[in-house]
Structure formats: structure tokens, C-alpha cells
């Protein structure tokens, strides 16, 4: 799915919070987007600060900028990673390390875990 070495999803069933599971996924995506916009705002601020202290960049220059193949690959990879991050929850069921047990009802699996944890 990606070249991630560490993985991003914890082992263990993800609880359901809302009556409709789709709402849980939408919530997770919305929060990811909120985070990404926060990052963009920070980046824009950083850019503004740089411009203020160093020099100016014309909009025309930006509009006409072209990228070599290495830069193009980087940008494509970043964009792809970005989409994966935001859509994480859509594929979470499949990425979970113990996905084989994913069909068990949440309450059933949690009860098993609680019983095992308490011996």
C-alpha cells in the first residue's frame, strides 16, 4: 500500500462512536483535513515571514515555475501521501495488523480482550 516502514495503525479493534459507522469515518477524515489546513496555514505564515525578511517573489514567477523530473516525482509522492493520510480511516480496517479478526462484533471482541486481560 505504501513504503511506510513503521505503519500508522494500532493493533486492536477501533471502537464505533456513532450509530452509523460512516459518521465515524467522516469524523476522522474531517479532523485530518482540519489538521492539514492547520499545517498549510503554518506554512503560509512561514512563507510570509521569509518573504518579509529576505526578498520578494513575483506571482508570475510562481505561476511559470516548472519542475524537473526529480521535483515532479517528489511532488507526486507528497500528494499521494497527503491523500493517504487524509483518507486513513477508509482503509484502516485493512491496514490493521490483526485485520483477520475484523469481522467480529466490537462488543464481542472487547469482551474477549477484557476477559483475557483480567485472566
Amino acid at each position, binding site marked *: 500500500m505504501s513504503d511506510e516502514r513503521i505503519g500508522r495503525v*494500532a493493533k486492536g479493534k477501533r471502537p464505533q462512536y456513532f450509530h452509523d459507522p460512516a459518521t465515524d469515518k467522516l469524523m476522522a477524515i474531517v479532523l485530518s483535513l482540519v489538521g492539514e489546513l492547520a499545517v498549510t496555514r503554518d506554512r503560509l505564515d512561514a512563507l510570509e515571514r521569509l518573504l518579509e525578511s529576505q526578498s520578494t517573489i513575483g506571482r508570475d514567477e510562481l505561476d511559470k515555475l516548472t519542475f524537473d523530473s526529480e521535483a515532479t516525482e517528489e511532488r507526486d509522492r507528497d500528494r499521494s501521501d497527503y491523500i493517504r493520510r487524509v483518507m486513513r480511516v477508509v482503509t484502516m480496517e485493512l491496514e490493521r495488523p490483526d485485520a483477520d479478526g475484523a469481522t467480529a462484533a466490537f462488543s464481542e471482541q472487547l469482551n474477549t480482550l477484557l476477559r483475557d486481560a483480567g485472566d
Partner: protein
Amino acid sequence: MSAQTLIPEPQHDERALQDFVRDFRRYLKQDVMPGIRQVYETRVAPSHERETGKPFDSYHDVRRAMVANDYYQFWSAMQRRSQEMMWESVVAPTERQLDELIRRYESIAARSPAGGTLELDDSLPIPRYHTAHDIHLQPGGYHTERGEHDVAAGAIYEAGLPIYIDGELGPDNDRIGMALLEHYKENFADRAPQRILDMGCTVGNSTLPWAVAFPEAEVHAIDVAAPCLRYAHAKAELAGVRVHYSQRNAECTGYDAGSFDLVVSHIMIHETSKSALGNIVAECFRLLKPGGVMLHLDVPRGKDPFGRFMSQWEVYNNNEVFASYLTDVDLAALAHKNGFAKEQAWMDGVPPYTGINHAYNTHGFKWPTLVGVR
């Protein structure tokens, strides 16, 4: 990456995401969470009393009622997502710099300038309470190794902690150890321990204050997770603090009987299991010299049905599965059953070292702590 740290250094956008998660969690805690008690007191509890004719007497009943409440649902879903995003925000920079982190660990471990040691045992079984689910949702948990000399789990834990707790453990993440140390000094002022053992040390954040406070003592620290122990060893050596780390299970450490003056743990016991906990307390009794002291500090389990319900959030939503059992356990009685005389084991409340503003109890916060004297 700074020469004096093993913490992965985030690039601009990685840092910005970490900052976002930290601030989002702060918003949830300060703006959203107080509303839960309000919803409970003004809607859920009165409704329960109307229907049953009596107030809630069980946190299980509180839970059944609260999970159907839309305000609680929304907070809970956001809190869960913030925990996942926290790990995402620290895993990415760790992954990017992992080769360099491992090289730094190897270089520090080869020199070990503070004179500490690291002893790993790759034949040690990782207990089921670590492998069944990733505690705190940290991908791979504390123990997963993905290559030789892997330190990723330690680095991820270390980088996530200040985001998780909004910096309240201080710049060195050591204020839990400092709190327990203060408590020990106040209550056992006449004792200067010669040999100290810290159980479940993770990356050694709470170990270091003990080694600094008792420079003449031989300080040992154990954990089952090799990547965290490697990180802990390098961190202590960088700090110039001599600690002997080794990969052992607190249930059965392999140290000689009567070989320690002091055995401590910091928020470890809720991450074990029912049978493990009894074994650990019995092992502490075995390890202590006559007159030696055992201290296990842990997280409060709540004072009333609502407080106990809220303390269980981490159980159902953050993979602290065993903590559910701990809510109802009498730790002092457990110590009496596992060797300690009746008047020689009790529960104490350890106040924060400084400024801890715990999510569930902002006033008069204390860490419940099992004290035992052999």
C-alpha cells in the same frame, strides 16, 4: 537532529501537525470535556433517576447511558482521533530519520560515557498484555522491532509523550519520577538506598531522577521492550547518568532474592494483567532486603460512578484494556496476599511534582500509590 538528543527532529510541516494535535487536544480538554459532566448531571443522571427511581450506583450503568449521548459520542470520537493523529505526527519524522537515530544509538552505546550498561535478551517472551493490542494505540506498541538495533518505538514514545500530556511532565518528561522521589524522601528520609530497581521503565524518563538523587546507588531499570531500552540507555548516557538497563519481565526478574533496597514503578501496573500484577508484587517482596521499600505509582481510577466511568475512557478507547480490572482491585489487599505484612503495605496519594493538570481531576490531584515495606 541535535547532537544531544535522540528525539527525531520534525521538518516544518511535521512540526506543524504535531503542534496542531497538541492544541486540538488542549481544546478538547479545556472546552469540550467539562461539558461531559454537565451533560451527565443535567440530563443523563436525572433521566436515569426518573426511570429507575434511584441514582447511578455503578459506573457500568453510567457508561451504558453515556455512550448513547451525542455530546459524549462526539467528544469521544474526536479524542480517539486526536490520539491516532498524535502517533501519525511523530511516526513520520521518526521513520524519515530512523537510520540516523540507529547510528546515533550505536555510537553512544559503543562509548557509554556515563558508565551505564544495556543487557538485552531476545529470548524473553513478550507478555500477551503487550502483544494482544497496541497499548495507547502506538503502532507496534513498545516492543515491536523492525530491524537490527531498532530504537523506533522508544523514539516514537518519547516524541509523542509531550503532545499527549501537553508538556505537563516538563521538558525532560520526568515529573512523575520526581513526584514519587519527593514522596519517598518525605516518608523514608532515614534510608539511602544502595540498590534501586525501576520496573517497566520504557525510555527511562522516571528512572533518571532516582539515579540523579542517589548518585552512590546502583540503579537498575527493566522493561520487556528492547527498542525502548536501547533508547533509554542512549538517553541516560547522553545525560551523563549511570543506569543499568536490562530486558526482563517484572513478574520474574531473575535478580537474586533480597538484592534491592528500593523497587519502584511509574504508571506501569495498569498496563499488565490480573495474574501478572500478583506475580509482580510477589517478585517485589522477594527482591527486597528486610526493611526495603516498594512503590507502585499509578493513574487514579475515579471517586464516584461518573469519575470511574471517565477513568475508563482509556480502557475502551485507548487500548488500556487491563485498567478496567484495576478499577475494582484492592491493591493493598493484593500486597498482603503476596507477602507483605498487614501493617507493612498501604495506599498513599502522591501529589504532582509541579503543576500537573490532569485531564480528569484538576483539583487536589494525587497519584494513587501502593507502598510496601519488607
